[in-house]
């Protein structure tokens, strides 16, 4: 059993890493047809950070991730990754450049086995690199190793989430976008997934995390942004945000 699977006490680091700005969104407007989903979002993610986006349903969290990973493109505004403008770059190219996305709802290939799912995650990589990355993923998720030949669709919800994250890691991303990894999981599994996210971050992957579970997200993140109807209404260090009255009322369930 790897130490990663055991629940790690989740205490947020007080000081955020001060790496280079890896990912930068500047006044990004994204539309679905006529619907103005993102109304001028500006976000920075520094190398080594865990940054979380919190907000209610329809605030634009998922849209922001999709805009970063190239599944959607902004109509105006700029998205830069390592200084390069990626606003118009398609998703499959960005995977090669180092942006990994574990999309909302897990979307594992349910008819493929666990191993085939992970191999698909390494689509952009060579066979030799894949072997090493597989070990890395099994190390993080020993559960997946036990299930290698099982169909993705027959996994439990938590295992599917592990598979979705593991698959995204197979492309060896420098920044990993996670969309609601705790969705529909039991509290213990949520703890487990979140401690694995911290572990992934500790091994050097920058993380942009979208969560409805604001308390958990702010516990492991360095910094956070609150989105409301397509705009950033609040940002700051995770500890500041946990103390913020508005956040406590709206998202942490305090009266």
């Amino acid at each position, binding site marked *: 059993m790897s130490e990663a699977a055991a629940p790690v006490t989740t205490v947020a680091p007080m000081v955020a890493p001060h790496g280079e700005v890896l990912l930068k969104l500047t006044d990004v407007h994204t539309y679905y047809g006529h619907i103005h989903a993102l109304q001028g979002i500006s976000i920075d993610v520094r190398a080594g950070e865990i940054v979380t986006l919190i907000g209610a349903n329809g605030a634009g969290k998922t849209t922001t991730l999709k805009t970063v990973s190239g*599944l959607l493109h902004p109509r105006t505004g700029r998205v830069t990754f390592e200084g390069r403008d990626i606003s118009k770059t*398609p998703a*499959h190219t960005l995977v090669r450049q180092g942006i990994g996305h574990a*999309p909302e709802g897990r*979307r594992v290939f*349910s*008819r493929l086995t666990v191993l085939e799912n992970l191999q698909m995650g390494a689509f952009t990589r060579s066979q030799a690199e894949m072997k090493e990355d597989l070990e890395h993923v099994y190390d993080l998720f020993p559960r997946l190793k036990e299930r290698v030949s*099982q169909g993705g669709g027959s996994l439990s919800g*938590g295992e599917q989430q592990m598979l979705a994250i593991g698959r995204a890691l197979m*492309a060896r991303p420098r920044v990993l976008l996670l969309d609601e990894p705790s969705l529909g999981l039991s509290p213990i599994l949520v703890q487990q997934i979140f401690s694995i996210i911290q572990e992934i971050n500790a091994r050097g992957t920058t993380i942009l995390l979208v969560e409805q579970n604001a308390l958990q997200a702010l516990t492991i993140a360095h910094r956070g942004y609150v989105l409301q109807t397509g705009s950033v209404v609040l940002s700051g260090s995770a500890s500041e945000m946990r103390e913020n009255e508005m956040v406590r009322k709206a998202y942490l369930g305090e009266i």
Partner: protein
Amino acid sequence: MTASAGAAGTRPQGFRGMRDRAGTLAASHRSITIIVGWIIVATALPLLMLVPPFSTFQTQSLWIDGFTNAGVFILLALGLNVVVGFAGLLDLGYAAFYAIGAYTYAFAASPTVPWISLHVPFWPMLLVGAAVAAMFGLLLGAPTLRLRGDYLAIVTLGFGEIVPAVFLNADKVTNGTNGIGGVYKPDLFGYQFTLGNPVPYYIAMVAIIAIVMILVYRLQDSRLGRAWMAVREDELAAASNGVNTVTTKLLAFALGASTAGLAGVFTASKLTFVSPDQFSFAVSFTILAMVVLGGMGNVWGVAVGAFLLYTIQSVLLKQLNPFFHTLNVPFLKDIDFVQYQFLLYGLALVLMMLLRPEGLFPSSRRRRELHTEVDEYVGDELGPDPSSSPMEQS
């Protein structure tokens, strides 16, 4: 007693072991297996037709001719399987590419074309026909990239109607409804193929099928094959794994169409005649039924499906009429079974969907989809996640 029971108990195991070993051997030398397999099948089939009851239906020469025509449909099914079975794109107008291949050869090798008179040899035209059909595959693919499922099916259906309609109405170029006759037959190193002797066509067809099958298997195992699989399963997830979904789908259309192009060139040279009514919706539908019945995604499966369906339709249905007539069965003897061909297809498809939805010879993945491994499921102590259950509440 006990000894025989013991022997019976061990025999299947020994047999299974042998079968597994043969399977591993076949998988590691797939191209050779395909070639050897086709040589055996192609030799055995005509010999089998000398034996009753087959020999009573029609002469061996007619059987061989029929098998060659069945081969055309095997090619078509192999090609459509790339589009439908591998990439998961429902194409209801596949006969359009068949028509394009056939007309390509007719234009290049018939003295009765109104605007040109060429005689390009058959063999290079096989490749040209495949290439032209592939080009039209791209042409159909490009505007339909954003469509999926029902919408894609409707557009391809339209394409399948438009192409024969163009050949029908552009009569200054195509002779319209009269079609193009006198298409040259193939020759090989001076040996001229003739209508009287079906054997050379038969051998050529078997060779073409074997080559196409090897290529299709290679494709399935390639990076592109994995990309098709990902796109078929979940397009968004495929894109976020680094699959270029646009080129992946375009290549499925193009490569699938190229096989129909081959089949078209072959048919034109064998019938020495092409006309728009050879490429109706019924043809597209028949090929699709072959792929579904054979087992979408399984290369050998769709080949067998195409062979069985064609043989049943072109030989056995015709035999039913005299059969019931001689037996003098009331009611049944008055039915012309050939007329009911599509009714029977429909029935076969409905029965198939109810009893064996994965097809006669399913790919392992298709089987996994339709028979979920409930018994293999080992839930964690926390139970399955509610959002993965079909009874999910939003």
